[in-house]
């Protein structure tokens, strides 16, 4: 009898531990999701505020795979201007995240 109850206790304890770990994992994932959502919102806001002059080179560079020279031709700018605009745009977006406090 004692033996049996101990076994059931162990089984219960195992289940409880497992559940606890899972909920911890879940809550960790939930927190990560929440942070990600918040960061996405920050970046989205920064993007909306970003001047088209800065946004256009960025989209062309990182999502259309053009280089600075090609972007210069498309937007009628010198490649160095394109690079400085890219730098400015990316620093603005990064600053948005830094102001909130980047998670390590």
């Amino acid at each position, binding site marked *: 009898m004692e033996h049996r109850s101990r076994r059931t206790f162990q089984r219960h304890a195992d289940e409880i531990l497992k559940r606890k770990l899972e909920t911890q994992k879940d809550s960790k994932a939930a927190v990560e999701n929440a942070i990600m959502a918040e*960061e*996405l919102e920050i*970046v*989205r806001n*920064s*993007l909306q505020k970003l001047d088209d002059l800065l946004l256009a080179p*960025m*989209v062309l560079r*990182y*999502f259309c795979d053009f280089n*600075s020279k090609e972007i210069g031709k498309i937007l009628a700018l010198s490649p160095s201007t394109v*690079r400085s605009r*890219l*730098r400015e745009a*990316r*620093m603005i*977006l*990064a*600053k*948005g*995240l*830094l102001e909130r406090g*980047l998670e*390590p």
Partner: protein
Amino acid sequence: MKKSCKEVKEMLVDYADGQLSQSDSSKVAEHLSKCQECRTVLDALQKSLELVGVIWADSLAETDNIRIPFIKTRKIRWPRYAAIAASILLVAIASIVWHTSTQPKASELTFAEIERKITESGSAARLLAAAELLSDNPEAETIVKQQYQYIVEAYPETTAAAKAKSRIH
């Protein structure tokens, strides 16, 4: 140290994009190994670009969602256009069949009609010529007028009738 941080921060975007020369790149890397602040900035640069990528992909998916129903409605409408085209074709074919089937009859009729019209216009022209000869005589004016009236009434479709009509007025 402070000035060096400022310099490095200006080069960080190019560093992340791999646009720096070998020597500049190694200088930045060396600074980064010592400076937590600049590392944080680099992290923020990379993370923000990743998130912009997510937003970009999201917006592309949204535009795809906008396009899909548009294509669907076009697909749904095709049978309708086909039905309209088919009905137009059907009407056209039916009218052609109708015309070809009625044409022999029509041509038979027109031969008789042509004959009738020729005789009609011939008689009308002869009557008109006679009336014009009579019209030289001023005493025959009423008879000539009656003649013109008769031509107009009896042979209404002929050119002589048209002429007679103009003489009356």
